[in-house]
């Protein structure tokens, strides 16, 4: 169909293009002599040359890639992966260090807090104890003074009570003198006062 018609168009200039095809490329109208009516990709005459050059070029390409390009590319990628894991490790290490620092800081903070509490407690206790001692001292002094006062009151009272008898005797003898006009013996009056006082 279009294959044959295409060839029909091509075959006209083919006559002059058989031998001189060397220098010319597609731009010219040259057609190789082998293309006798076959569709170019199916032309067996071109097979050996294409296979040979394919083998040469692909073989060289394979060797070049295997020897030069792929080790290099693989190296680049490996180095990068290594570097990334290294960096990640480093980052993890730094993070661990930061965490440790935070933990240490918190521990120190807690320690300082308990220390501060202890110091506060201690100061509190000391102040309390001091206050207690001072209070006791004051109390003791007060007690002493109270005791002294009570003792002096008691002695005064005792003295007073002692004198009450003599005063009463004096008074009684005076009253007796004034009323009776005689003198009562001291012993009598004393006995009388004693009995009344009781």
């Amino acid at each position, binding site marked *: 169909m*279009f*294959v044959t018609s*295409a*060839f029909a*168009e*091509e075959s006209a200039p083919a006559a002059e293009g058989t031998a001189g*095809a*060397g*220098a*010319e*490329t*597609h*731009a010219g*109208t*040259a*057609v*190789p002599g*082998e*293309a006798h009516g076959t*569709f*170019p*990709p*199916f*032309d067996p*005459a*071109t*097979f*050996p*040359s*294409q*296979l*040979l*050059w*394919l*083998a040469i*070029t*692909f073989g*060289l*390409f*394979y060797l*070049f*890639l*295997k020897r*030069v*390009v*792929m080790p*290099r*590319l*693989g*190296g*680049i*990628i490996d*180095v*990068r992966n290594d*570097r990334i894991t290294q960096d990640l490790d480093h980052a993890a290490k730094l993070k661990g260090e930061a965490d440790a620092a935070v933990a240490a800081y918190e521990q120190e903070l807690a320690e300082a807090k308990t220390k501060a509490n202890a110091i506060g407690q201690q100061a509190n206790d000391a102040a309390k104890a001091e206050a207690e001692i001072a209070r006791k001292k004051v109390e003791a002094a007060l007690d002493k003074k109270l005791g002294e006062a009570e003792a002096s009151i008691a002695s005064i009272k005792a003295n007073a009570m002692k004198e009450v008898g003599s005063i009463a005797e004096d008074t009684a003898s005076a009253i007796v003198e004034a009323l009776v006009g005689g003198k009562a013996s001291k012993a009598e009056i004393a006995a009388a006062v004693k009995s009344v006082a009781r």
Partner: protein
Amino acid sequence: MAADKVDPIHQFHIVKLIPINIGGYDLSFTNSALFMVATVAVASAFLYLTTASRSLVPGRLQSVSEMAYEFVSNMLRDAAGTQGLKFFPFVFSLFMFVLVANLLGLFPYFFTVTSHIIVTFGLAALVIGTVVVYGFMKHGLGFLKLFVPHGVPVFLLPLVVLIEVISFVSRPVSLSVRLFANMLAGHITLKVFSGFVVSLSALGAVGVAGSVLPLAMAVALTALELLVAFLQAYVFAVLTCMYLNDALHPGH
């Protein structure tokens, strides 16, 4: 000249550049060979030069090379496991060769190496040859277990084995024809639509206006061909990986 430009087959012609004839075989250096050399040169130069600085933080072009490398490496590891990595240089060369050949072919006036069945068949035969040789070397006759799936009833076995053998034998054919046909059809279509632009614009003002449509089509097709060029290289490489997996692990 006009007829020549519109002819969609002209781009596939083999032109002898340096005639060589050895032992009755025509081994001339042709435009096909020239573009094989160009493919290899472009691919090698790209891979070599972009990785020359070995940057830890890659530039754009180095990233492209690394992406290609890791792309093929992952493909091979997924299909054939870690053992498959001994074929990594082979698969990577195949992928890069086909990809660059396809992409070079997209330039106007350039020859597409992969649009010739003998080239794609050569590559496919290389793949299957590697599979067969390595399979027998590694597993001996155990490689033939490839054709005997597990858990098949005995009376069905001859039929299944026959089917497996046929499917194995058709692999190089399908592998080569797929790539060849895709590139051939794509380039013919491109050429036809571009030819429409030329022949329509020869018709005067109306023709020039009308040629906008095939021109847009040619642009769209070029984009599609770009996709196909990559996709076919990928498919070729993936299938190679799967066939190599058969050589590594024949019992499935």
